[in-house]
């Protein structure tokens, strides 16, 4: 059995099996929207393979991360965008960190 890791989703700790992607962790408590579209509609993972960009969330302060392409690590901070907040994904998120 693989171990478990804890990620923090919107300030709440969530335990998942290690090796799980953030996309899987986001739905571990039920299917729900994880970002607001341009018009404020709830959206969530579709392709599961990094092409559709619908599962984008903020991970450790980096915006627009594809949650299906990132494996959970202990203490990882994940933030989703609530629906009906049109425009927020373009305006309010921190910019992508410059490369180290």
């Amino acid at each position: 059995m693989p171990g478990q890791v804890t990620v923090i989703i919107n300030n709440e700790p969530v335990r998942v099996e290690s090796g799980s992607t953030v996309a899987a962790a986001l739905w571990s408590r039920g299917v729900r929207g994880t970002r607001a579209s341009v018009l404020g509609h709830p959206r969530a993972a579709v392709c599961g393979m990094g092409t559709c960009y619908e599962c984008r969330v903020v991970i450790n302060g980096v915006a627009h991360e594809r949650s299906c392409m990132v494996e959970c690590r202990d203490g990882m901070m994940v933030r989703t965008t609530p629906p009906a907040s049109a425009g927020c994904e373009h305006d309010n998120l921190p910019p992508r960190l410059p490369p180290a």
Partner: protein
Amino acid sequence: MDHSCDILIIGAGPAGLHAARAASRSTRRPSILLVDENPSIGGQIWRRGAPAWAGRLLAGANACSISYLSSTTVLQRLGPRAVLASTLTPSGRGPIAARITFDTVILATGARELFLPFPGWTLPGVVGAGGAQALVKSGLDVTGKRMVVAGSGPLLLAVAGFLRSRGALVAAIAEQAPPAAIRRFALSLAGYPTKAFQGLMLRARLASVPYWTGAWPIRATGTDRIERVTIRRGDRDVEIPCDLLACGFGLVPSIHLAAVMGCEIRDGRVVTDDLLTTTAPHVLCAGEANGIGGVECAAIEGEMAGLAAAGMIDPARRLLPARARARRFAALLDSAFAPRSELSSLASPDTILCRCEDVTTGEVKPYTTWREAKIHARCGMGSCQGRVCGPIARYLFGLDPGDARPPAAPVDVAFLAAADPGAIPGESPLSE
């Protein structure tokens, strides 16, 4: 972070892994670098389940110099023999820039699913068919979840079987292809040793999941996630409550990186010669980016490309008949599971077509070229760069989303600036 190698292989699915193995057997001992944007190797079909030989290969079993970079997305060309990628540090921090120089590059970027819009297809919980499988393999727990699998192709059966094995309750499989086409296809398989499809059909039947042919989703409904899907079955509409709808209408080649690298694209596929050389210098392409062909074809092409890149031209040529046979099988699949015309009228004018920019089907309809749809309606201008809506616009309105501009995946300007292309001696600076 800089890397250099003799042979760079982009994509660690069946094609890329076979390419790496074939090249690693060369007496020339080329240095090989394999990269993939996924955290682990395997591509789509072998996600979290690559064969044992692949693990041994990357551990250095063939005594050649081979390395693997995971979570690494190749973004664009930096010159004739260099690319820029975004990657992570060994501790998982990033994204950071990586410049990779090479003698020859093999593109093995595979395929993605074809999605078609219908009312409600943007609701959370409506996922791809292969998408559902990928999410579950990546840790999503579907135990006890009620699911409907819909769309087209043998993948639906594989996915339904897989979801059941993970504890999902699959209420139905809705295959849009007409029953006669499926029967014809099943019969034509007699000529092929791998009767995978018949095997899958049998498995699905044994598993007592209804397999409806000539059936497709017309509507998904729910408040802020899917709660029900309506399936059209002949002259009847059947409403099925569900937690997830896994829906994909087949596959389309992933050609974005190839286009950005300067390879000619025709009919949505990378153009290559017999030995898989593209029209761009030092660039080969293997697997489903050359056209949907299935895992066997991807493996054969990967091996051919690996041999060719390592200078073993005759052994590569000897694989031509096997490749031709695999491609013929793919053509059978293509004709049996071609999307029916009814599917092009599922979306109403206010159904979203471009999910990134929330552009409706009605807003795209007036335009006669992809370029106009982009400029005037913002279709395809979002993060996915037309990967989802491009094939839809082609299917619904005949628009040709031929162009792809660097970078092949969105990164912000600060990232590109910090990548400092001038640091590579003898290479031209970032173009465009």
